[in-house]
């Protein structure tokens, strides 16, 4: 009836550290993409010397990656929370056109931007509320994608809204030497990273993506956090749409679906599992930067841009293989150390 195993007082003497090898493997899994980017930067610096390794080129890469990164942030938050949001291009087009229409009809620029961003969040809210009814989020967001791009075309009257010069401060203007989109991207990622890793709501949002049942049983309204994920995703989409509009000072009502695939590549490269619940935004940012770095270096060397696309694809497949290898190694090591602990008494 009584069991005498693992006396409580023996517990406190244990050191709370994982074996070195496991920590190393976890490091590769969590930080591997940073290492990959560093390797790429060094390799390209040598290969495409002297044009690649300059401050100006660095800014160029960052600026080119900024837009992909903003949309990737939206996709990533959606996936982390457990839903792939495909309505992002539609939301982006709608936000751009709404902002453009408001500005050409005499609304102050600041207010027009605010309205567009709120509208993006509202689209996310609608997506979320529909998905909660038990419909597949992918289909729901494909539906809203069509609705949004139709609405954008309706607002714009079928043509691009041009002459939005008051938006250049978030497009081609530079502040302290850096283009505005780089600042916006940096701020967005800093904000979202802190939110997801440091705040209660962010942590719960990630937990909902991982296992909604666990969250529900902890007495939390899991559904609210699902909707919150969509709202953030819609907000990012609207922000990306505004930056796109600002870069060309024109609002284009046509939803550009290819941005999803660029963003998804960055997200997948960052090791954000499509199953949800895991992923980190700094890695997504680096994923977008890697895409920008590769196409930049290949352009400098005069290689056809088609090869940039192909290289990116290969890299993506390679990163999948690496992740698989790391996770199987970790679990194998853990099984070993777990069975070892039975006999050494370090349970």
């Amino acid at each position, binding site marked *: *009836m*009584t*069991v*005498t*195993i*693992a*006396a*409580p007082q023996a*517990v*406190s003497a*244990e050191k*709370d*550290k*994982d074996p070195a090898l*496991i920590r190393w493997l*976890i490091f590769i899994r969590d930080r591997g993409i940073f290492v990959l980017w560093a390797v790429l930067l060094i390799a390209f610096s040598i290969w495409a010397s002297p044009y690649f390794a300059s401050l100006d080129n660095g800014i160029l890469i960052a600026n080119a990656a900024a837009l992909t990164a903003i949309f990737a942030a939206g996709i990533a938050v959606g996936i982390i929370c457990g839903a792939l949001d495909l309505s992002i291009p539609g939301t982006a087009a709608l936000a751009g056109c709404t902002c453009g229409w408001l500005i050409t009809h005499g609304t102050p620029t600041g207010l027009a931007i605010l309205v567009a961003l709120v509208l993006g969040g509202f689209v996310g809210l609608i997506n979320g509320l529909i998905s909660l009814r038990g419909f597949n989020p992918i289909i729901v967001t494909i539906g809203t994608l069509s609705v949004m791009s139709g609405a954008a075309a309706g607002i714009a009257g079928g043509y691009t809204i041009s002459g939005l010069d008051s938006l250049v401060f978030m497009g081609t203007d530079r502040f302290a030497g850096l283009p505005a989109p780089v600042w916006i991207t940096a701020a967005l990622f800093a904000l979202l990273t802190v939110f997801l890793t*440091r*705040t*209660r*709501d962010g*942590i*719960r949002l*990630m*937990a909902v993506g*991982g*296992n909604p*049942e*666990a*969250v529900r*049983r*902890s*007495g*939390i309204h899991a559904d609210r956090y699902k909707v919150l994920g969509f709202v953030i995703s819609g907000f990012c989409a609207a922000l990306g749409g505004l930056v796109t509009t600002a870069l060309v000072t024109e609002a284009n009502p046509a939803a550009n679906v290819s941005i999803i695939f660029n963003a998804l590549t960055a997200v997948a490269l960052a090791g954000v*599992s499509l199953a949800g*619940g*895991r992923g980190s935004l700094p890695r997504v940012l680096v994923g977008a930067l890697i895409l920008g770095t590769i196409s930049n270096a290949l352009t400098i060397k005069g290689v056809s841009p088609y090869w940039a696309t192909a290289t990116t694809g290969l890299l993506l497949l390679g990163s999948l293989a690496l992740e698989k290898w790391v996770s199987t190694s*970790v*679990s194998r090591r*853990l*099984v070993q150390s*777990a069975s070892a602990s*039975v006999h050494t008494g*370090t*349970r």
Partner: protein
Amino acid sequence: MADNALELRNIDMHYGYVRALDGIDIAVRQGEVLGLLGDNGAGKSTLLKVMSGAHQPTSGEIRVHGAEKTFGSPADATHSGIQMVYQDLALVDAQDIATNLNLGREILRRGPLGWLGFVDHKAQRRRSTAELEKLGVRTAAVTRPVEMLSGGQRQVVALARGATRVNGEQSGILLLDEPTAALGYEQTQQVQSLIRRLADQGVACVLVTHNLPLAMSVCDRIAVLNRGRKVADIPVAETENDHLVGWITGARASMFATASEAS
């Protein structure tokens, strides 16, 4: 008895024409481990679901510390100090142990950052480490993601999550559904000692299991269900394996044979 932590009186449960539970009286005291045995379909899980508020009985009453309660949902049961550890552990794999244990009762930072909802990770880790130590379990560093734990360690974390939400001082009640079903021998021993320690700290435990040796070694008292009826309710010290098997299979006559059945 006055010191019953959880008491069910004359619980009937019908699914259509199927009588899943038939006049069940059962009680568990503070600091006691009650084993619930029975063959598949005997009504163990149904009874546990009635206790956890997942099912509402057709008739009968539920008393928690002597006060009659009606559970409309699991949340009501949780509110009364009843925690259930499910067979599917429902842990967040990608998050670490500390985050899993603190989900839903996060510690916020002091000051303005706390008002913004910032979580105090250090304090959470300290609390989780302390709680696990109090339970006398050593799983792994609390910063280890759950996906990197073995099956037994996960089970311990799931148990600990339930256990840290009930405790002896607050007269908690812990319901366990097959906690060792997926575990090896060594891990079963660990879970077993954890259940025992919880009971020693004053938590009332109800344990549903198929594992007879486990029930014999960890429980204070064992109740056997057969086709929705309680056929035995006996302290472990006064029974033996063969008797229990007899009650489970129906080969042995019920301890509570009614007059009509006896005739």
